[in-house]
Each structure stands twice: as structure tokens, then as C-alpha cells.
């Protein structure tokens, strides 16, 4: 899943840092992702994993790092039974 998340970030996050080598806990906003770009990331993640982030998960912190994104996607997939 991490590789897929990195692909999404590569296409939509407009990071200054190299996504391939970015630590999973690294702060994506500090690495150059704008608040506006985070929306592109959210929509691309929903498409990539065929999920929809529920309202309670829609907060800036969820999109703060690869690890937090992975945890959220995993949780949604678990709830969806997939």
C-alpha cells in the first residue's frame, strides 16, 4: 500500500522532497504539500483505493504523513470489509 500512496503523492502532492525516499513519518506539509494540494491527494487516494474518507476522518492530520494516510486507508478498508 505504501508504494501506491507514494505514487499518489508523486502525482498530486507537489513535494519538494523525493517521495521515493521520504520517511513514512515525515510531515508532508513541511515537505512542501500545500493545503490545496492535499485535496488532490485525498481525491486521488479515494480513486486509487476505491474508498471514501468518512467525515470524521477528514482532517488535516490524516494527510500529514504516509503513515497516517496508510493507517486511515487501512481502517476504512477494514470497515468496508475489503
Amino acid at each position: 500500500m505504501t508504494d501506491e500512496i507514494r505514487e499518489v503523492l508523486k502525482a498530486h502532492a507537489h513535494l519538494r522532497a523525493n517521495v521515493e525516499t521520504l520517511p513514512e513519518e515525515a510531515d508532508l506539509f513541511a515537505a512542501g504539500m500545500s493545503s490545496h494540494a492535499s485535496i488532490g491527494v485525498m481525491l486521488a487516494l479515494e480513486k486509487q483505493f476505491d474508498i471514501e474518507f468518512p467525515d470524521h476522518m477528514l482532517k488535516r492530520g490524516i494527510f500529514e504523513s504516509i503513515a497516517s494516510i496508510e493507517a486511515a486507508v487501512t481502517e476504512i478498508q477494514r470497515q468496508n470489509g475489503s
Partner: protein
Amino acid sequence: MTASDRTPRSPGAGRSAAGSTTEEREGGTSDPVVWTRGHWFGPSGRPLLGWLTSAEGRPSTSGVLILPPVGYSYWSSHWTLRVLAERLAARGHLALRLDYESTGDSAGDQWEPGRFGAWRQSVTTAAAELRARGCSHLTIVGVQLGATFALLDGGELAEAVVAWAPVVTGRRFAREIRARSLEVPGDALPPDLDGAMVLAGTVFAADTLAALSQLDLSRDVTATPARVLLVGEAAPPELIDHLTSLGGSLEQREIAGGETALAWASEDAIVPEAIVKAIADWIGTSGPSSGEAVPTRPEAAFTWHGERLREQVAELTSHQLVGIRSEPEDERAVRAGGQTVVFLNTGSETHTGPGRAWVEYARALAACGYRCLRVDYRGWGESPDEGHAPGRPYDPHCEEDTLAIIRSLRSAGHEQISLVGLCASAWMALRAVLREPVTGVIALNPQMYWRMGDPVEALLQDTRARRTPERERQERWERVGLWTALDHLGHRPWAGRWLDDLAASPTPVTLVFAAGDDGLEFLQTRVRRRLQRVQRAAGVEIVEVPGIDHSMHRAWLRPAIIELLLRTLDRQARARD
């Protein structure tokens, strides 16, 4: 300091996407001068502030109500909408740029419930205001959520609507806000709110997000005016079909580039010339107007958190800088000997401050008896641009404007003046007081490593990335004590000498930093010994505030900042005495 003698200005001159001026773009024809004045109107208990722009102050039978976005794009799009208003005024229209209730300079607190309905009601009030001024033909131009309001209510209120990038599906918009926002901690919520998110300082309460989530323009628009223009990216087919089914004339102009005013940081934003031109051309020219100058109401009184305040649109300095003055309504409540507190522009944002912080701080201080002024430099907000538009952080003329503001206030009888700036404007205040001492400076997150000519980035994280080699070098040599040794020997960098100058000046200085802010890190690394010295000398004070962010967008922490401002103003006044 009144709004009665405003200098006219030519429409839309200044930096644009094309890097040219209106006059050049429109073939060198001479444009009539246009006038803009702040105007309070609407309910006496909850007055709204709008900016009326007209050709040479004349009235018009054609009014254009301009509805801004809600949220961060309000600041990014401000200059674009000002340029649009000036262009329209030059073509004979009377343009009114509205601040919805609890946004911008209008009355109302953004933490109150029922904001969605209040914003919509503001549109109705503003349309009625233009009608009352003799506008028999009304066009509403809305942007983003403003465009949504224009489409929802334009059929009842106007003869024409321009919708630029409307929010078509509220659910998606609400989801985007949530995803970009910080959640307000439960213990920081007012008792009448179930929850709230904060996006760049703008509060979206749970009931606002719920109302937005219900919105669907492809269903909810029940009437359209005779003419409608959709401009920007292509509108969804469902919306086109729905609006077409309601009758009237619907036109679409797909024009790219709107993101330069709607999605870019305010410090980078530029006027999307093609969109502005398309809107102005579609609205066209109004017939010649005559009659008395457009009357305006520059002053209003209202209640803010239980206290009665008066706010006045003000002009000062020979440049006729524009600002809003806040003070207790009752003159007897003004603090004897208290400072006049001046809030200086942050980033490229208007005098309303980051996420409206300057409005909230100024009103809170006024409620405690201070006179406050939030004011625009040339090229910012509502001030004349004189070739400086749109204003950018660290523009060199800001130091001269700061000095001019101090001198203008002083000549108007304000003997005690304190300056409040954030980041670049804190930097400007710290430079200006070396030449013109004041009662105090409260510098929020100043970056004292910055020197004239250095690059300017919109985001501090980008500055931090650029400065990484420099920071690492400074940390390395700090660890081995080089900077302290050099300081002992009298070799001090520019910032160290600046600190010395501030400590030696008669102006008490308080540097307030978000915990871990780059500006503080620099001082503690590169000029640690100098910092300790000037703090001991008591001329410069450092305050570190946990939890706040560089831009002070965490709106729920503002009460703590207000407390800090009050304590600091009091301390600086006592130091003076």
C-alpha cells in the same frame, strides 16, 4: 483621519498576470478616475462594511454587487476583485464589494452559529443597499461560495448574475474544507457550537458545514435572472441543464487561470486578467451618470462581545493610506494615556489580518479601552497602490509607510503609539522604530535573519528549506561556541547589531514567537549571547507561546494572544512612565 477627501485612482493599475496596466491593456485610452470608499450599511445592530467604487464619485443606475469567496481565497482574490470593481466603475457602474456578516470588516463574530444563513442574508441586504442608491439594474458577481449565493438568490435580487467558479456541490466543498482544516479542540468551543473546523483562520462551525453539505445548485436554484454568465472552469452538465431549464439567457466562458487568484497563496496571487476582462466585457458599459456624489457612511457602532464599539474608515498620511479605526463608542471608556495600537499588514493580506485576526484583536483591545487602527500599506487592501500593487512581504516602501503612519497619527494627537506586526510587518516595525521611536512594538514571529534583497517565499516552510544549509552551518558553529567567541570579540552579524540598536532605543520591544519558530531558532543559534544581553538590559523581551502557528491561523487560541497583547501593552506603557 477621515474618509472625506479620498484621492481618486485610475482603475486596475498595478501588477497583473500580464504584468501591464489597465491603460495599456485597453489600448491606451484614458480611463476615468475611480473612487473607492468604505461604507457601512444594513442593520444598525449588525452593520456590514462594503467598499463602494464609482467613476469620479458619481452615482449610477447600474449597480454591481461583488461577492467574495469565504475562507482563505477571500484574501487571495482580494486584489483581483478590487481591480474588477475599479474596471466596472470606469465603465459607469457603481460597484459594491461586500464583506458578509462576521467576515472581513463587517460586524459579527465568526464563532457564532448560523453563519451560512447570515452570509446569505448579507447578500440580500447588500442588493437592497444598491437598489436604494438608485441602481435600477443590478448585476451580482460572485466567486466560489459567493458565486453560489449569486446563483441561489440572484433570480430574486438581480437582473444578471456572473458566477465564477461556483461551489456546485456543497458536500464536496464541505469535505474539502474538512480535509484541509484543523479541528477545534472540544474545550475551546463556544457552548452553542457542536464542533468546528478552522481553515487558515476561518471558522467553519459544524452547522455551517452541515448546511453546506446539503447544497446542490443543480437542484436548489429555483429562479434565474434574465442573464447568467458562468466563467472559469467548465461547469458540470447537470448545472447547465438545470439553469437552462429555468429560462433566461445562459452563457459560459471556459477560461483557465483562475487559480492564480483562488488557489494560490495571497503572497503569490496575481490578477487573472482574462477572467476579469471577460466579466467586465460581459457586463458592459453603463450609460453616463450624473447627480450628487455617492454618499457613504464611514462610521458605525455595534456590540462586540458585550461591549459597544465604534469603527470608522480612516485615511492617513500623504499617501492616503486606508484603515479601520476601532475604539470604545463611549469616549469616556477610552483608556487615559493608553496607546493607539496599529496593526500592520501581514503577507499580502488586507488590513483584516491573517484569517481576520487583526479585526478580532482590534475589537478585543477596543473593548478594553484602546484605540486601534488596522491599516493597509500602499498596494495592500484598500490603500492607493502608487505602482506598488499587489503588495508583497518586505516591499521596501513598507518601512517608509510605517514611519508615515506613526507621524500621521502623532500629528493627529495620538501621542502614545504601539505597533503590532507579524512576520514581514514585524520586521518593518522593528526597522521603523529605530528611526521613529514609539511607545512599544509587539513583533509577532519576526524573521530577523531576513535582509533586504533576500528571496521572499509565501510559506515559511519554503524559506526554511532554502535556508537549510545556512541553518546547519549556524548550528554547527554554535555547538563549538564560535558565535559566542566572535560576539565577545565584537564581531556581530547584522541581526546582532540590530538587537543592540533596539535595546539602545527608547522603544520597548516584545518579540513574540510561536514555539520553535524559525525566527526564534535563528536568534537562539546565531546571536544567542547578544539576545541574552539585550534581554538583561530589559529593552527587548522574548515571549514564546506554545501551540500557536507562525501565521496565527489557529483561531481558537486567539483569546490567549489577546491576553498577551493586553499584558504587553500595559507593561510597555509602564516602562514608558
